[in-house]
């Protein structure tokens, strides 16, 4: 996925930190779906928008009704991601995915049960293959990036 010439800087990758301990309680403790989706959209705002030049086709993840772009880089055995979407809830869902993987090693990422993770956060429906939101495709792309890059 990163064979394209244009790619975000290393600082951009490592600059994105998402602390699960701080982020996840707003989901596990949400009183209703409204709070949960508000938290999702707030979280999405933490992903810096990708510059227009980086919203290129080679970085696009297929299977999304909205547009979504994903970049990955491995630095010292740790995996970093940057992503963006033109839909706010999808962007929030991507940010949640990244919360689980950002800065982790390949083994941790490969072992993640993302369905269980979303269930626990009260968002079970959203990772279903029957949805057109594309989050499953993104989850698979995120895992694949970690697994494949380390093979090289």
């Amino acid at each position: 996925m990163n064979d394209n010439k244009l790619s975000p800087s290393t600082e951009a990758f490592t600059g994105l930190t998402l602390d699960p301990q701080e982020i996840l309680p707003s989901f596990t403790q949400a009183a209703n779906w409204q709070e949960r989706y508000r938290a999702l959209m707030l979280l999405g705002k933490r992903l810096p928008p990708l510059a227009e030049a980086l919203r290129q086709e080679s970085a696009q993840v297929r299977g999304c009704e909205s547009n979504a772009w994903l970049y990955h880089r491995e630095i010292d055995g740790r995996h970093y991601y940057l992503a963006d979407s033109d839909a706010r809830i999808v962007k929030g869902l991507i940010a949640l995915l990244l919360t689980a993987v950002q800065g982790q090693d390949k083994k941790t990422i490969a072992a993640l049960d993302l369905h269980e993770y979303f269930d626990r956060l009260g968002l079970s429906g959203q990772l279903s293959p029957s949805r057109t939101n594309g989050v499953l495709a993104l989850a698979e792309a995120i895992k694949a990036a970690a697994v494949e890059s380390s093979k090289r």
Partner: protein
Amino acid sequence: MEFSQLRSQFPALTQSLGDYPLVYLDTAATSQKPQGVIDAMSRYYQADNANVHRAAHQLSARATSQYEAVRDKVKAFINADRREEIIFTHGTTEGINLVALGLASQLKAGDLILLDSAAHHANIVPWQMLAKQTGAEIVPIPLTDEARLDQDAYRQLLARKPSVVALCHVSNVLGTVNPVKEMIAQAKAVGALTLIDGAQAIAHLEVDMQALDCDFYLFSGHKMYGPTGIGILYGRYEALDKLDPLLTGGEMIKQVSFEGTTFNILPNRLEAGTPPIAEVIGLGAAIDFIQSLPREAVRAHEQALLKRLQAKLKQLGGISLYGAHDDNVGAVAFNLSGEHHQDVGILLDQQGIAVRCGHHCAMPLMQTLGLAGCCRASLGVYSTDEDIDRFIQALKSVKELLL
């Protein structure tokens, strides 16, 4: 007629999604099915199941007579001339493919095919395949600023003597109604074959083949309270008889030897393989359902609902409506200004509201409107004022959440 009582005939409509009662506003994608349709299909499987036309036994005879009776029912329903003009397909998409590809030997390079700019992909892509095969040229009939087919431009295009004019009766995205009767007459006057995609019209409008006088008309059972997997291709006998069969094998054949094969006569000639028998019977029950309702009252009820839906969306503010006219049928296309249609769809779904959000298999129309996509709320005979009010209330909550 008390329309709210109709709902009890539709078991799927009585459910709740979490804390919210289901508000089904996706009838244009597929309608819900009344108990009568469900029962007719399970009765067939429980009592009569057999292949049609083939065996010498009583079960097959019963299945065949029920199956063929539906052909007569469809013929009467759309006022066709002959029962042989009714071809069972799997749906509108298959039917258009059958016609477009079946015309291959009748078209040649440079022939013109006029298409509806608001068409569903099913009424675009088969023609592109035909154009590729024959060298024919496709020209879309442009839309006016009001998202209606531009009739002046259409007349100018007709001067180029097209071979085929393919239109939709009602747009699946916008709900706009094309003046198909006039457009067909004009097309015939220049010698064009005419095809009308009636997928979104058949449940809502009276459809009369004698009045329309088109060569081909298509619809799907599942959008008219019937099952999936069954559709109708109506063809004027002479036009239908000239189509090359798309699929071969089974009852469509008269005689086969390794030296050569002769085909059966219509309607069998265009119905290869074992047909979807239970679905045909389900379609018959769906027609019974539609005919059990007073046509005029249904039309008035659905128009009142659509008017309410359009008006309440306008009142809500911050909503863009697309091609929303008084004479539309069945559907409203909209966006919440500045918001992605998918976000709106996800948040409506959280509240039990089923609408469709996306490009609606009409990407050229989306491009014309300058949209990545939109939301569509669509209605059926079982829809109620309460559905619309719940939907509007839910959309208010979506607005608040997204602000």
